[in-house]
């Protein structure tokens, strides 16, 4: 069904229409890549930092399946899953994470800055909340030009406390911008639980302050997430205004790098693992033996990913001159002393 040599756009198209097999396949792909990323980081083969998303795969896959490549998706440093979901091949994702020319930006950006314009994946940003007003601007361009693109702005629960969130949502509500705000509420911002940082229990409730609907969704269920997205995307596409969707989810891993996540409440991880989004879809598709189904798909992706990892390890690093390209879109290079 999903061949590994599908084009990026085909990979995206496969998720549209709500085929749960395709969703499951992609979610497993993401899970397997993220596991490799963690290992590679621990082996010292990835510089800097990584933020993986095991446990949250349902959200990005549902969004990818309800948007077009001509739509625009803005998300965060926790972006590997988003890139894969939107259609980027694993080599381009891992290549970037490992700083190779094969990466989606040739090693200039790194794990926190993935992008592919052809897929509607805007550069993921590493400043919490900064993507939210930028997304409002992407939607503003659509509104002003009169095209029918929809913008999706993804952020975490922690980002709901930064000023940019407030300003972006007020602007979107005020101007009825065609944007869907998707909060991946995984209960933690770094090592801080939401109740220690946020004066209200539910992010979606803040939508009222911006004159837009706020919807809390079970982010572990790709179908529930899909339904919420369909409605919000329709609303935006029909130019009836923005929506705030809060996807309740959980990351099964630490915040970044090698975080052991000791701050979790007792039993919390186990409770959420019982609602693993991968397993929930598999159970839907094969109620009798979901684990066998998962194992089958996993085996395929593990084989593929092993090849991807080897290919990226062997791939060339950027050369000195690469660092001087792209500083400016126009004009002479930035290394001219004058």
């Amino acid at each position, binding site marked *: 069904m999903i061949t590994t040599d599908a084009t990026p756009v085909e990979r995206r198209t496969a998720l549209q229409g709500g085929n749960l097999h395709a969703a499951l396949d992609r979610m497993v792909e993401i899970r397997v890549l993220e596991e490799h990323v963690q290992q590679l980081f621990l082996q010292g083969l990835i510089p800097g930092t990584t933020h993986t998303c095991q446990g949250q795969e349902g959200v990005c896959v549902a969004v990818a399946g309800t948007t077009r490549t001509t739509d625009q998706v803005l998300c965060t440093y926790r972006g590997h899953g988003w890139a894969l979901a939107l259609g980027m091949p694993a080599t381009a994702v891992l290549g970037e994470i490992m700083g190779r020319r094969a990466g989606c930006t040739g090693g200039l950006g790194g794990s926190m800055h993935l992008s592919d314009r052809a897929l509607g994946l805007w550069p993921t940003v590493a400043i919490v909340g900064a993507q939210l007003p930028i997304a409002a601007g992407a939607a503003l361009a659509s509104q002003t030009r009169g095209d029918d693109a929809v913008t999706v702005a993804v952020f975490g629960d922690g980002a709901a406390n930064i*000023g940019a969130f407030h300003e972006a949502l007020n602007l979107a509500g005020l101007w009825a911008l065609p944007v869907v705000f998707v909060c991946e509420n995984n209960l933690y911002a770094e090592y801080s639980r939401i109740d220690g940082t946020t004066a209200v229990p539910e992010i979606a409730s803040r939508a009222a302050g911006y004159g837009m609907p706020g919807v809390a969704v079970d982010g572990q269920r790709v179908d529930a997430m899909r339904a919420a997205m369909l409605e919000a995307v329709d609303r935006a596409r029909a130019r009836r205004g923005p929506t705030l969707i809060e996807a309740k989810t959980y990351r099964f891993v630490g915040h970044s790098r090698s975080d052991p996540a000791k701050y979790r409440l007792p039993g919390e991880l186990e409770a959420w693992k019982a609602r693993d989004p991968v397993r929930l879809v598999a159970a839907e598709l094969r109620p009798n033996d979901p684990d066998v189904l998962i194992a089958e798909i996993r085996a395929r992706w593990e084989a593929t990913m092993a090849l991807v990892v080897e290919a990226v390890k062997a791939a060339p690093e950027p050369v000195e001159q690469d660092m001087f390209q792209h500083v400016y879109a126009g004009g002479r290079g930035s290394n001219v002393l004058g």
Partner: protein
Amino acid sequence: MAVLRMNQAICRALADEMRADPSVMVLGEDVAAAGGVFKATEGLLEEFGPMRVRDTPISETAILGAAVGAAMAGMRPVAEMMFVEFLGVALDQVVTQAAKMCYLSAGQFSVPLVVRASVGAGLGFGAQHSQTLETWLLNTPGLRVASPSGPSSAYRVLRAAIRDPDPVVVLEPRALYFIREEFDPADQVPSPLGMARRVREGDAVTVVALGQMVRVAAQAAEAVAKTWPVDLLDLETILPWDRRSVLESVARTHRLIVIEENPYTGGWGADVVAHVVERGWDSLDAPPVRVTCPDVPVPFSAALERRYLPSPEFVAKQIDALCAEGRALTPWWAEE
């Protein structure tokens, strides 16, 4: 020919670009219905309508962020920051987002954004509304920064900024908004940013200035003209500033004075001096000099604020001292 105040010249540049290119749009606080606090966007709403000319909430992060996003999507937004200090609540969007997006996307996205902001002292707006703040921006590869020195300069700079494919911050000296100049907008070919403008030619000393200091420098140059013919350069673009023109001038004059409207410590004038010294050492007959404000916040009182700004008289004195003695005077405010 037209006689335009600087705010009118800005408005004309905006209107001309908006007519030429439907992707140009304007947003900011009170820029639409009210035509701008400094009347630099008057009539745009009426001509171009509420989609392309937008009043915003007091949300500088959202204004700039929305402008960044719209620019990445292919529009050419011109965002107004009424006073440059307001960048302080939203600098991230300019220097960490806009300036780096082309690089971070390896050229997939560009950010043809213009941020206009009013700058400078002299009008009694006090310490939180009177700075120029180029220094927040200069050490930012990926960004361009310009500051016009009057109506025709503003017209030219702004059109060039709007056409530039990269993010440009245009710092408009507030005290010049109501200054008039006669010029023909049609004559002002928008030259690319980054070229200094020779205000007057001379061989005794190179004087480099920016923004409203260009007038101060010109008055000083006029005052000493009989004795010391000044080669006066208006940088107009401060990032990147025109190193070639400055070095060429110093190669002829052998002396350099930079006039800067900023506190002494850490201002951009140091970058000019340092580069000229490093690359033009053999040209120099005397130590380069910076004429700046003292290291204090801008005082409110009219008497103190006048004293705070570099004056034509003091600049003339420094020109004279440097040319006659090979040594500038200690700044008036300095204790050893």
